[in-house]
């Protein structure tokens, strides 16, 4: 036998038989890749932060090689029609319930009352909603990161929370106090709404009369907004004071900005027509972008492809329905059996507050649950149970939806 023949035989013998890899090896590879990429991004962020004099801790981007719960369960519809408030992740199409909150009044010794939020935030390790005490939060597309603000608002830094570990990876210091944050649709930017006072605080020395009784009242104090680059932590602040009419009246203390559908503008709702005021990202007040001309106050807004608008309530008599509008012409295309359109699951389906007609028969609009409704179909899928309070969440919960894939 020659030496090369023995080399060949020895190698083949060593490679003989099955050689299985640990299960989930592909996911381990993808997780490590993500983590390395995030480290690279964080490295770049640290360099930029140094240049602008900020301190940005490293972003670990997942902490551990754990797949987010939302990637473990990719079912088109994940419904929990017996849960309210929800305990386990709810999702439909491209959208998931990333968090929800209830309001809790916190009376202060000086007579002020702070209307605090108690959040249930999706824990990506378990796929369950976990009670958190952040003063405000928004979840990035892909549901790996949440931007969080601490008590008491306005906050001086924005936290980027890893939804797998539940810990803040980085803090982004801000020059102007922030009380609201919202991610852009690509997750690369945040619009942070700045205030001089806590918009959730009702002031005893600024009372409002409700049912003939003076109670602590809100104090509008919005100063503007910052567009924050998530990677670098760099922010550009622009003055944009709170809306008021010619008599000086203002409806709300909290008037947060959000990004427009194409991320080119930011807008805040106003209580008068046309319902929204827009600014470009340089801080210039603009008109309504053509694509959003027919967007109503309904939260769903434009469909992902921008062709349709989830419109306002359109019910008549006992009928509970909302309209779907052509975004180009503003004309009603059809109605769907939803009471309040909250988010698009994809271009044909919406998540709405409503009541399965078979269970409600059109009665009692306050008896509502999350439904998945399909344009052009009577079929309704119950995503949650009817809205009610629990010991952990004492109040009517308000959903926050996010794109579940990045």
């Amino acid at each position, binding site marked *: 036998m020659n*030496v090369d023949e023995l*080399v060949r035989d020895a*190698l083949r013998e*060593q490679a003989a038989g099955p*050689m299985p890899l640990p299960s989930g090896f*592909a996911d381990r590879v993808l997780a*490590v890749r993500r983590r390395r990429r995030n480290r690279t991004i964080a490295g770049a962020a640290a360099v930029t932060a140094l240049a602008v004099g900020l301190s940005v801790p490293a972003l670990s981007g997942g902490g551990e090689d754990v797949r987010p719960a939302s990637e473990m369960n990719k079912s088109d519809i994940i419904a929990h029609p017996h849960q309210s408030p929800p305990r386990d992740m709810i999702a439909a199409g491209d959208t998931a319930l990333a968090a929800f909150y209830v309001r809790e009044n916190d009376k202060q010794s000086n007579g002020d009352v702070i209307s605090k939020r108690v959040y249930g935030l999706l824990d990506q390790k378990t796929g369950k909603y976990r009670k958190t005490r952040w003063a405000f939060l928004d979840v990035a597309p892909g549901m790996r990161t949440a931007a969080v603000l601490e008590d008491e608002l306005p906050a001086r830094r924005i936290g980027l929370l890893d939804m797998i570990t539940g810990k803040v990876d980085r803090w982004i210091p801000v020059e102007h106090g922030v009380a609201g944050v919202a991610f852009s649709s690509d997750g690369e930017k945040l619009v942070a709404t700045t205030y001089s006072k806590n918009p959730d605080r009702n002031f005893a020395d600024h009372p409002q009369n409700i049912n003939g009784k003076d109670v602590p009242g809100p104090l509008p104090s919005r100063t503007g907004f910052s567009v924050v680059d998530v990677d670098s932590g760099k922010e550009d602040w622009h003055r944009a004071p709170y809306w008021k009419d010619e008599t000086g009246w203002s409806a709300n203390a909290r008037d947060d900005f959000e990004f427009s559908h194409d991320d080119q503008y930011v807008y805040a709702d106003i209580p008068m027509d046309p319902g929204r005021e827009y600014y470009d990202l340089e801080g210039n007040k603009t008109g309504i972008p053509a694509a959003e001309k027919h967007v109503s106050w309904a939260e769903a807004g434009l469909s992902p492809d921008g062709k349709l608008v989830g419109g306002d309530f359109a019910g008549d008599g006992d009928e509970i329905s909302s309209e779907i509008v052509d975004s180009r012409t503003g004309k009603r295309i059809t109605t769907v059996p939803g009471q309040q359109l909250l988010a698009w699951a994809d271009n044909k389906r919406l998540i709405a507050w409503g009541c399965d007609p078979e269970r409600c028969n059109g009665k009692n609009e306050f008896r509502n649950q999350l439904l998945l409704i399909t344009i052009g179909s009577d079929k309704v899928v119950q995503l949650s149970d009817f809205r009610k309070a629990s010991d952990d969440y004492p109040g009517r919960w308000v959903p926050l939806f996010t794109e579940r*894939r990045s």
Partner: protein
Amino acid sequence: MDAQGQESFREFVAGRSSALLKTAVLLSGGDRHAAEDLLQNALIKAAGRWHRIDEPEAYVRQVLYRQQISRWRLKWRRREVSVAELPEEGTDDGDGAAAAELRLVMRGALARLTARQRTVLVLRYFEDLPEADVARILGCSVGTVRSTTHRSLARLRALAPELAALGPADAEREPSRDYSPVEVRP
């Protein structure tokens, strides 16, 4: 990588990982943990350009080989290789047992080669590739492949005296005079 890309990547790993791991184990001299690291790094590179790769398996294999060579060139800390204990020198109770014993001795000797030497032998004798293909994969000259093969076989004999009685390989009969250094493209 989008959801669809991730799905096809998972399918590829599920279908081909066993074969790829075998190659990685051979390249690592039988060190299973080192092999998994090697394969993981190759797959990470593949995942980064998943949509642009026409032949994923060929790509991953090429990365595996080149990584091994690069590791050697960069003088990365060499991992301690644990090999199965060699059998005690015993009685020759038949040709089959003697051959099996020789294969084990050879396996132990292969584990003690440098990564570069082992990679060339795996490509030549396990993958059965001609010298020109090995040179193309490793980004070096044919002469370098030939001289490395020659020196690797000689080293095996030196490492295990039991192999001294074996006949010379073709590569040993015509030693190359090309001693140019290994060139690896980045």
